[in-house]
């Protein structure tokens, strides 16, 4: 088969004070025509760096398109001349928050004048054609949910009608039905002869969707697999996943999560009849009540954009409650300052990392954001804090050139690890109340496993955990109770023993608990 894209001997090195990271170390990669090629690897393995090498020149290496060596030195040549398109992982470098969806999709416009109305119409048409769901082209990007942003990013790539489409973790924030629709779209595109590169941490996606898989580890290729053969060689999907995972990490990683039986304890968070507005001032949370107990993981399942974000932000005092009250450990904290809420031991892992990290500060400084205030004197007690942050970097295996490198320089998954590390260590045992929004989003299999274990361990130690997730597998394997949210209302709260995936799925689509429990 002829390859449309060939990358040979690609090297890319990043330098951080004294330490050198070889993000790509003599990587060879080839993409056949009409193929879906998955790239797998741990966080920081160099996947994003590799595909970005098609838009910014790597340090060294050769790139061939249709057999001809090309010089892709800026995005414009790649997009216009060679018909490449990419949906990036780091949306903060790709979407302009303050602009509308239409203004973000610049590739549409040509000539001097510009009819936004026309672009908006074209976007609506394209959304329909690609079956990407409903997004208002007039909406400002900052008002969109994570999943919606991701769909805009995918649309932005698709709309240029590329012959090589690259998707860097496109499914991280999508719901199962959205993922299904995306995959059937990708299969159609493949039928049309397009070639697709997809980067993902969901190994089953790679196994079910791709034709070939390239696995990267520490910047080097450790294997190129034929997916069909892989499916044949292993008895079931699970074993194939295990094989891939151990190839990625270099050792056995996946095993079943073990959830100890723990009796849930006392109520620590009481949310009563909360009404919260979105940024446009419309109520999107309509009188939700939730109780969170120690030794408990309460899951909040729902398709993104159903009021989860506003509910959590209201709970965490990021926005005002229009109605209702919040009590934490018996204290009324309704519309009290965020500092007070934090002092009661509320840790928060937001869906959007930018809400939790200061990108230009170092990894160390970001890790100290919770603890620097505990210093006794005016001066931050660095001699005590530095060892703590070092320990966190080791424990959570944060891959960074140095603790002093800015967050900006970390790979997506490692940024997430910084947030998780800091928030998990806010308080110990029963003192910890954890609100986690899609905490494993963007993490590789090994780290995902690790974070999930940590969640269970924290639960066993007595923490009260609210887990907001659109990943049903995560919800089903971790939670004691599952609340399902739909259009700003709770459709019901079911204990895990009584819940099935189908029930939760139906409730996420708007069925009430009473309709699904038979």
């Amino acid at each position: 088969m002829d390859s449309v894209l060939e990358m040979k001997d690609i090297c890319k090195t990043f330098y951080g004070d004294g330490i050198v990271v070889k993000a790509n170390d003599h990587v060879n990669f080839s993409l056949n025509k009409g193929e879906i090629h998955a790239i797998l690897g741990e966080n920081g393995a160099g996947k994003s760096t590799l595909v970005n090498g098609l838009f910014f020149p790597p340090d060294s290496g050769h790139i061939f398109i249709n057999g001809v060596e090309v010089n892709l030195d800026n995005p414009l040549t790649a997009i216009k001349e060679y018909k490449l398109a990419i949906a990036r992982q780091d949306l903060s470098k790709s979407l302009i928050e303050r602009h509308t969806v239409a203004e973000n999709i610049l590739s549409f416009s040509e000539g001097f004048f510009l009819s936004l109305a026309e672009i908006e119409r074209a976007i609506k048409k394209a959304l329909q054609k690609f079956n990407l769901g409903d997004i208002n082209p007039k909406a400002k990007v900052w008002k969109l949910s994570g999943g919606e942003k991701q769909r805009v990013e995918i649309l932005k790539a698709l709309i240029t009608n590329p012959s090589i489409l690259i998707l860097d973790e496109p499914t991280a924030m999508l719901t199962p039905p959205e993922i299904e629709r995306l995959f059937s779209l990708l299969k159609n595109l493949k039928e049309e002869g397009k070639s697709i590169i997809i980067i993902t941490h969901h190994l089953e996606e790679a196994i079910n969707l791709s034709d070939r898989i390239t696995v990267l580890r520490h910047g080097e290729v450790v294997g190129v697999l034929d997916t069909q053969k892989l499916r044949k060689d292993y008895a079931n999907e699970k074993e194939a996943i295990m094989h891939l995972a151990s190839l990625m990490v270099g050792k056995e990683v996946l095993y079943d999560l073990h959830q100890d039986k723990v009796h849930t304890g006392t109520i620590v968070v009481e949310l009563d009849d909360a009404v919260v507005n979105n940024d446009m001032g419309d109520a999107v949370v309509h009188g939700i009540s939730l109780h969170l107990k120690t030794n408990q993981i309460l899951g909040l399942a729902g398709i993104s954009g159903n009021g989860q974000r506003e509910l959590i932000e209201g709970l965490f005092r990021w926005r005002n409650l229009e109605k209702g009250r919040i009590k934490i450990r018996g204290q009324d904290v309704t519309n009290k300052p965020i500092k007070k809420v934090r002092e009661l031991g509320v840790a928060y892992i937001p869906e959007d990392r930018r809400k939790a990290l200061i990108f230009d500060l170092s990894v160390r400084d970001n890790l100290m954001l919770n603890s620097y205030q505990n210093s006794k004197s005016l001066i931050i007690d660095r001699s005590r804090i530095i060892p703590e942050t070092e320990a966190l970097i080791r424990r959570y295996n944060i891959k960074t050139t140095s603790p002093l490198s800015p967050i900006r320089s970390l790979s997506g998954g490692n940024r997430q690890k910084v947030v998780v590390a800091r928030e998990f260590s806010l308080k110990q045992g029963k003192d910890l109340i954890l609100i986690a929004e899609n905490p494993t989003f963007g993490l590789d299999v090994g780290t995902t496993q690790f974070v999930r274990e940590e969640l269970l361990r924290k639960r066993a130690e007595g923490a009260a955990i609210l887990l907001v997730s659109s990943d049903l597998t995560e919800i089903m394997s971790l939670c004691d109770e599952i609340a399902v949210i739909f259009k700003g209302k709770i459709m019901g709260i079911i204990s895990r023993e009584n819940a099935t995936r189908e029930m939760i799925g139906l409730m996420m689509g708007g069925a009430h608990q009473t309709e699904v429990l038979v």
Partner: protein
Amino acid sequence: MVDYILMFSSIVAAATFFLLPTLGEIYAERSGILNLGIEGMIIASAAFSYAIAYSTQNLWIGVLSGMLLGGVLSGIHAIISITFTRTQVVSGIGLTILGTGLSGILGRGVIGKAIDTLENVHIPFLSDIPFIGEIFFDHPILVYFSYIMVPICWFILYKTRIGILIRSVGENPEAAYNQGVNVNLLRFACVIFGGMMSGLGGAYLSLGYLNFWSEGMTQGRGWIVIALVVVALWNPLGAFLGSYIFGTFDVMKYYFQQFLPTPVLKMAPHVSTILFLAIWGIILSRQKVKSIVGAPTSLAVPFEKS
């Protein structure tokens, strides 16, 4: 008895001096480059255009020279801050110092020398409207130019492809670059446009408004332009409104001389600037408002290709 027509007409004259550079700086800042060198560019251009007009006896060559000098000076800022990604604040302040020094040299020969300056141009029909005509349409042509530049600048910024690109580059240069936009070229163009508008403002000051050259004649009003951009919310229409408000403060000092001591009046434009900025700052600091109208997200942040 105050001559109201004269008063309003001089407000227009004063406001134009603010309006021209503000429109230019709005473009520069929209593209993400803060140029604190406005004051320097204005004063150097004021001296240069007056000197050139004096020696060539041609006013328009004078005006064009002023624009050109503004463009060249801002080009220095552009090279430092865009090509070499250095701190924009330092480079801008340096430009002001440079421009002020330059103005002394360029204008040395023409201090106190008089020339015929830009004439008021009569526009048939418009100038004949009572009141309005006398207030708005009895001015040098540069004033009319400022009128039409307001809607043109607004239209380009919001309704054309290049306008969206300029705004994108100021919001998130990386995102724009990833879509194939030439970030540096756009920023260069905007900064130089800003410099030329400042130069035009300077030429207007010495050749169309005050009609002489003397050292330090801007009285620091170039700095007010920087505040005006904020007050205008980076919008050309806002620039129009803001310039006229500040123009009013500027002119009022002549009319209140009988009621208030001169030093207080001289302070008025500057104090009102601070007050305005403070009030604006409080309004704009609300997160929600910021997401809608605040400063361009990447203002003054150098862009380095990764």
